[in-house]
């Protein structure tokens, strides 16, 4: 079937989509957006997290057809042109990226957190990121990055 939706502000269409295919597969394999990562395909790791109509979801658990006509925002759509989003800058500066596999999902999820909660407590950060697994960093630097981005956002 054919599926069309808005991705990072631009209208995109994919043809010959299998009816049971996930939004993640369509983004990565048909729309050339490999930022969202495919690791578990069962909602456990969060590395495929994207915004669907403004709400963070696991793209691996959304059927492509369910996204028809909707707004999708992926990690590729967080930066404004060449300017990284504050959360992306903070990840780089805090050393929160090692292999980088978990990073796109964490960025989208953390981006949503600091949009909704300008000054999150540590407990709120942990709660918000509970569905995103990282095998490398031990999470401490990720927490540092989120705190840094939140502080900067509050200062603007």
């Amino acid at each position: 079937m054919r599926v069309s939706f808005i991705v990072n502000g631009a209208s995109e269409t994919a043809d010959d989509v299998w009816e049971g295919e996930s939004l993640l597969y369509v983004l990565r394999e048909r729309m050339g957006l490999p930022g969202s990562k495919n690791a578990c395909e069962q909602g456990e790791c969060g590395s495929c997290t994207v915004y669907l109509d403004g709400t963070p979801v696991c793209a691996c658990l959304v059927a492509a057809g369910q996204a028809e006509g909707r707004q999708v925002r992926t990690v590729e759509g967080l930066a404004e042109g060449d300017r990284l989003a504050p959360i992306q800058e903070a990840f780089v500066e805090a050393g929160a990226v090692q292999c980088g596999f978990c990073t796109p999902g964490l960025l989208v999820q953390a981006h949503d957190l600091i949009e909704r909660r300008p000054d999150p407590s540590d407990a709120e950060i942990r709660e918000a990121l509970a569905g995103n697994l990282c095998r490398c960093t031990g999470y401490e630097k990720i927490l540092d990055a989120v705190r840094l981005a939140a502080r900067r956002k509050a200062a603007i």
Partner: protein
Amino acid sequence: MEFLQPATWEEALDAKAEHPGAVPIQGGTDVMVELNFDMRRPAVLLDLGRVTELTGWDPAGDRLRVGAGVPYATVIDALGDRLPGLAQAARTVGSPQIRNRGTVGGNLGAASPAGDSHPPLLAGDAVIEVESRRGIRMIAATDFYRGVKRSALEPDELIRAFWMAPAAGPQYFSKIGTRNAMVIAVCSFAIALYPEERRVGTGIGSAAPTPLRATAAEEFLARELDWDAPLDEAVAREFGALVAAAAAPIDDVRGTAGYRRHALSVMARRTLTWAWRDHLGGTGRSGRGAA
């Protein structure tokens, strides 16, 4: 495979009547896992995501009628004051991403004995509204669960809503898992106090082929509780023992039957103690998160 996307509830009922084998999909947090892992290849996928009737809720007499497609995040944010037991359970489901998509209707559709909605629905006297072209059926939660991942739903029926009264008294949910996030319950327990009626509702999860009420334990409390006095510890302990006795747990990868029975008796005693503290404190509302 066919992908059907009805725009209204009426269209959805037509589609299900025409394709009784169609697999409904709402949040997809159960269905997509099965598709991704080749565990299921339905001929027809019926996306209910456009059916706006399913994502709302309204007062219906003295109860709330909550659409099957309301996600956990909304249960927590918008309904948590009126359905605190269910909201506590919803807070323990998966991760934020899962709670943004997963729904109570999907939990009912899957009918897993470990589903976290079920104990608070049982304790809260919930009724499930299902519909097909043949008509509407109102099924008490106690009659809805029929076996491991089997429910009273007929092939041509869809779940429209669940009906539940706003909390008449304190409600609590407790769940045992290996960590705080992303765990399927080893076992779980929900309690709801009805101070006016001088009775207590219960729900047990993940400790029998179906979620179930601990009826003998409820009857015991209706008989023994002195609603104006501090909780008698012996009564609380006996309540725990009766809840454990109501379960029919098995040994599996998540825990042994013996462990489950023991954990249930502890959760029953504790949740009753918390609820009683609120009851005597007169707040009538529970504020505490799940254990």
